[in-house]
């Protein structure tokens, strides 16, 4: 960046009214937003367009790389006629169900265990080396075990999504509890709060920022868990669709499945952000660019 960005409003001639200055500032902000949008659309269309073009002209092999139009075509086929493995909605719902169950159970137990251990120094000192060991196991290696334990159905995927989510949320909840302000806790105690009231009124709310930070990441983790579980062995699910598409060299199908996952993940992220903003409305607004 060569130009130093400042927060100054532009210079105005002496005697310019406040209203004119405000109007100019709003105009500048709107223009800037438009420019950002324009670039974003330009990048997207440029990328998709050159992919399509390169594939059609066979600069890249369409057999391996597919092209946007064939991906859209495949999605349309799936939506209108279903996949070779049955209705698309069944697959989509299966993956959603697995990741949602894994996410909620993992987040719930992560928060509870994080708070309990965070509030209990003795217990946390005792179990911390064990948690470190468990945490250092790469979660995906557990997938085959879970398939063995819980079978090809829902259970094994939920279990994998659960362990993916649990440790992330647990670590953050634990840290959040530990970071709770000492003066604030002392204040609550002197005002008359019992240990349970301190946990509810001070510790949990102050850990909430940390917990939400982990929830954003961990929803993605839950989806990874569900899909890896499906790769290893499943009867339904987006992961299975990708496996089947791979088996028949249907690259368009593989990309189409990825598009579905992206849509699902983004909607989930949107919901989490929404809930976060509702629950954490006490936070000061983040620093905002002045739109110059």
């Amino acid at each position: 960046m060569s130009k130093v960005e400042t927060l100054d409003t532009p210079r105005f001639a002496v005697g310019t009214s406040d209203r004119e200055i405000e109007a100019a500032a709003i105009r500048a902000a709107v223009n800037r937003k438009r420019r950002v949008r324009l670039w974003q659309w330009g990048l997207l269309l440029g990328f998709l367009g050159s992919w399509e073009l390169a594939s059609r002209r066979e600069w890249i092999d369409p057999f391996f790389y597919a092209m946007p139009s064939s991906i859209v075509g495949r999605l349309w086929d799936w939506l209108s006629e279903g996949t070779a493995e049955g209705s698309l909605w069944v697959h989509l719902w299966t993956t959603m169900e697995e990741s949602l169950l894994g996410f909620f159970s993992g987040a719930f137990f992560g928060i509870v265990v994080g708070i309990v251990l965070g509030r209990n120094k003795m217990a946390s000192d005792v179990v911390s080396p064990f948690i470190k060991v468990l945490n250092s196991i790469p979660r995906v290696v557990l997938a085959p075990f879970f398939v063995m334990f819980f079978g090809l159905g829902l259970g094994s995927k939920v279990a994998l999504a659960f362990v993916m989510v649990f440790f992330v949320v647990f670590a953050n909840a634990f840290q959040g509890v530990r970071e709770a302000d000492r003066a604030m806790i002392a204040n609550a105690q002197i005002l008359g709060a019992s240990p349970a009231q301190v946990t509810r009124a001070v510790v949990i709310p102050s850990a909430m920022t940390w917990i939400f930070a982990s929830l954003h990441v961990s929803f993605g983790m839950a989806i990874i868990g569900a899909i890896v579980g499906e790769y290893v062995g499943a009867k339904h699910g987006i992961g299975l669709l990708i496996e089947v598409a791979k088996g028949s060299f249907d690259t368009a199908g593989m990309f189409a499945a990825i598009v579905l996952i992206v849509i699902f993940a983004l909607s989930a992220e949107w919901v989490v952000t929404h809930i976060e903003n509702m629950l954490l409305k006490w936070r000061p607004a983040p620093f905002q660019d002045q739109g110059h």
Partner: protein
Amino acid sequence: MSGGAALSPHAAPHMATQTPAIELINVSRRFISPEGKSFTAIRDFSITVNRGEFVAVVGPTGCGKSTTLNLVTGLATPSAGEVRIMGKKVSGIDPRIGFVFQADALFPWRNVIDNVSAGPMFRGQPKAQAYDKARDWLKRVGLAKFEKHYPHQLSGGMRKRVALAQTFINGPEILLMDEPFSALDVQTRVVMHNELLNLWSESKASVVFITHDLEEAIGLADRVYVLTAGPGTVKTSYEIDLPRPRNIAEIRYTPRFIELSKQIWDDLREEVEISQARQTGA
């Protein structure tokens, strides 16, 4: 602002017959570091705070001022000696105590009225009753219009008013204040001093006010204790015979105030120099 008739604690005759509000008798407090080394914060520390008395404690940095307050709250226990409240040995947090912190100890996720009503609600009062009380206290500190604001939306001075209301709503008989106004600008601080004296004169609480600001100590207190450089112990105690009600903004220019300031500062300076030499030397 000076609406309430100030009660001079010394004028009340029956108080002499009662046990003091706070007694620290030959108290020591030692900390053991994780490496196993011990560090003495206060040693042979004795002060007495009579009922309704406003006591200020001044001393150089690191002389264990905050430690003494933690001992009175029961959040910490003495390594030796005894701490008594109203004649009884401290065991745990006493509900008659109120504490105003140096740092912002308001709950940032609660709006003003939920912060102020926290004490009564922790103590089991129904919400409606706690809210009524909180509204009354917010009116007294001049924040009636701000009950739905969150702490981050208020200025430093307003947050301190909320903190005062939050503390006073429990009707504390003992009020402990740990450099409560040190983060405020000078003008706001003077306003808060008058506000505090006003609230105190109505509540008749016994106060221990810790500060490193000598003028603040003299302006507010009936008695000023000067502590030695750490490990802290009481060096001298001064009776502040300035008349009440006091106006902090004006009292500092009276001859008696200036005389007291000089006298106490001469005493305090030695300790500050020792403390400084230690910090730069070590």
